[in-house]
């Protein structure tokens, strides 16, 4: 999923009308039926960066499904997040090939350097650190994805270079 950087601007209370218009448009495009729920949530998260509770309520009404089910789906799948994300997203692969090729050292290094665990965002809001089960880039293990770009054969030194580029 593309990380989102435009979220804050559109999600501020003063821009409420604009926000619901955008949600509406995305619901219409994916089809306002219960089975489009996952597609709709993907699309909204793509626009706002995360899924706010009032958005979930809105989606529940629009698709005619109970809020409990919308919340259930939003929390079941690991790619959906109910928390705002940082400006940049770094996803570290924890798949088998990466694990065999010292991904643990990458995680340790990041925890030390950034002070965050996977699933958390740095205090300055610059970077969200995520871990993924497998990027299926096993030929390039250990691998990471920084803002949608795949980087392979990562070392603590090479990841430092990447982080410096985004000021983290």
């Amino acid at each position: 999923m593309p990380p989102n950087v435009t979220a804050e601007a559109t999600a501020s209370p003063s821009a409420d009308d604009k926000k619901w218009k955008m949600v509406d448009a995305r619901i219409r495009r994916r089809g306002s039926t219960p089975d489009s729920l996952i597609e709709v949530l993907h699309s909204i998260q793509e626009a706002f960066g995360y899924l706010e509770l009032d958005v979930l309520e809105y989606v529940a009404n629009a698709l005619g499904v109970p809020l409990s089910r919308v919340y259930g789906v939003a929390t079941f799948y690991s790619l959906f997040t109910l928390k705002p994300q940082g400006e940049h997203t770094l996803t570290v692969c924890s798949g088998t090939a990466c694990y065999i090729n010292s991904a643990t050292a990458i995680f340790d290094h990041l925890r030390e350097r950034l002070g965050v665990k996977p699933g958390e965002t740095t205090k300055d809001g610059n970077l969200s650190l995520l871990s993924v089960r497998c990027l299926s880039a096993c030929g390039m293990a250990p691998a990471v994805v920084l803002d949608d770009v795949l980087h392979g054969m990562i070392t603590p030194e090479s990841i430092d270079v990447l982080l410096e580029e985004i000021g983290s």
Partner: protein
Amino acid sequence: MTDVADRKEDSEPKASGPIRACANVCQAAGCMSLGAEKLMTAISDRIAERGLTDVAVKRVGCVGLCAIGPNVEVPERRQLFEAVDPSSPEAIDRVVDALAGGGDGRPTDTDSFYVNQVRVVLANSGLVDPEDTDDFIAHGGYEALKRVLTTMKPEEVIDEIVTSGLRGRGGAGYPTGLKWRTVAKSLSTDGKYVICNADEGDPGAFMDRRVLESSPQQVLEGMAIAGYAVGATQGYIYVRAEYTLAVKRLRLAIRQAEHAGLLGNSIADTAFRFHIDIRIGAGAFVCGEETALIASVEGGRGTPRPRPPFPAQAGLWGKPTLINNVETLASISAIINHGGEWYKAMGTEKSPGTKVFALAGRVVNTGLIEMPMGVTLREIVYGIGGGIIGGAKFKAVQTGGPSGGCIPAADLDMPVDYESLAKAGSIMGSGGMIIMDETSCMVDVAKYFMDFCREESCGKCVPCRVGTTQLHMLLDKISRGEGELADLDTLEHLADVVKSTALCGLGQSAPNPVFSTLRYFRDEYLAHIQDGVCPAGVCTMNSRVAS
């Protein structure tokens, strides 16, 4: 390769005559992340500078050797150029030299990585432009679909697949032809469905990803043939959201096929109609299980349900549904083109045909390979894989992901087929193979997979939800050097309970890594428990007073 002249390539210089040689630049996700797009431009710029007019540059899918990209192959000269730096004029010139008639690339007609492979599923990979359906058609694409629609009855198509002996490549190995027949026989007044399972979740597996990135049209063709055979008019591809390039190319391939009259209404001017839509997953391993996948396509939480009824009788929206894996569907057109007998002649009697494997871990040639079933593990690891990195000692190969097991060096001469792997306590799975050397601790490996299953358990049934957590805690205790001998009995007993009582495949197979490591590497467990040492030096042991 003469047909490349017909191609419309945006970045290649227009050739006046027939193309003499073509630089096939791998544009699968791995090579792209290493600058393969820039590389294409650099090569065509250099061709123009050197005034060559009868050569071309082309975007192709995975060439195979993912660890040493970006890769460029010049098939006419049988040469491969690896790790071609887009910003190095010398590296670019080496490729252009090959186009011009010379060249000193890695010879693909003698290299063991290439000559030992038999490519059916990957036949188009590295040869056809994954973003150009015309190119796919120029290489014989969609001919099988046209033939099926114009000359074969649905039963005849199913008979051909039954004859081929093809078994589901997603892991379980159920005979594909029988599955098709069941769906074809299931009565439905308002529709049946075909679903392509592209929710490749096993860590260490990237076959489906590469097939979708390299030859998405081949999968669409297989789905349409399946739709015709079972009487479905709607297909869905359920693909992981992480596979952005695959999704992009699938969308493009669907649009181009619809435009060419090969998908949609009245396909190839017949009465057959078949539409394909894409459903994007949202990160749940359990959705690879077919009933969970159906729940997810319907827009709900991806939790499995007990079978029967099987999806073949009551699947998506309660209608008969055929679910096949990417690789299974990618094998269909070749079977139709060459005949079921041709396919059956490859591989072993019970596991016919070829299988794609993803080689990764501590092996020299990391990448994607395709071999006839029945090849030995030794041939894969040492023949094609080139052995262990740095000449280190082989310890185990892990097959089947979190549902599989670890096979030790003593079994390297075992043939790779569904039955032999099961007998060795592992499974074929989707075809991921992780090679491990002495730097891997097998207790830690078991713990790693149990952590995976614990996290990915959907929570619906108790044996899986609670069992995997308890198993993980036991493994963690042992790996910290705090285990007791009695823990091994508890571990085995609990693993047995989870295996026999969990609701779906995830839970039932979650204990496999524990069983296989206990079976082959019990000494490592004992070293952790009795001696308080991790032989591989991976686990951090709590210091203990020697007794």
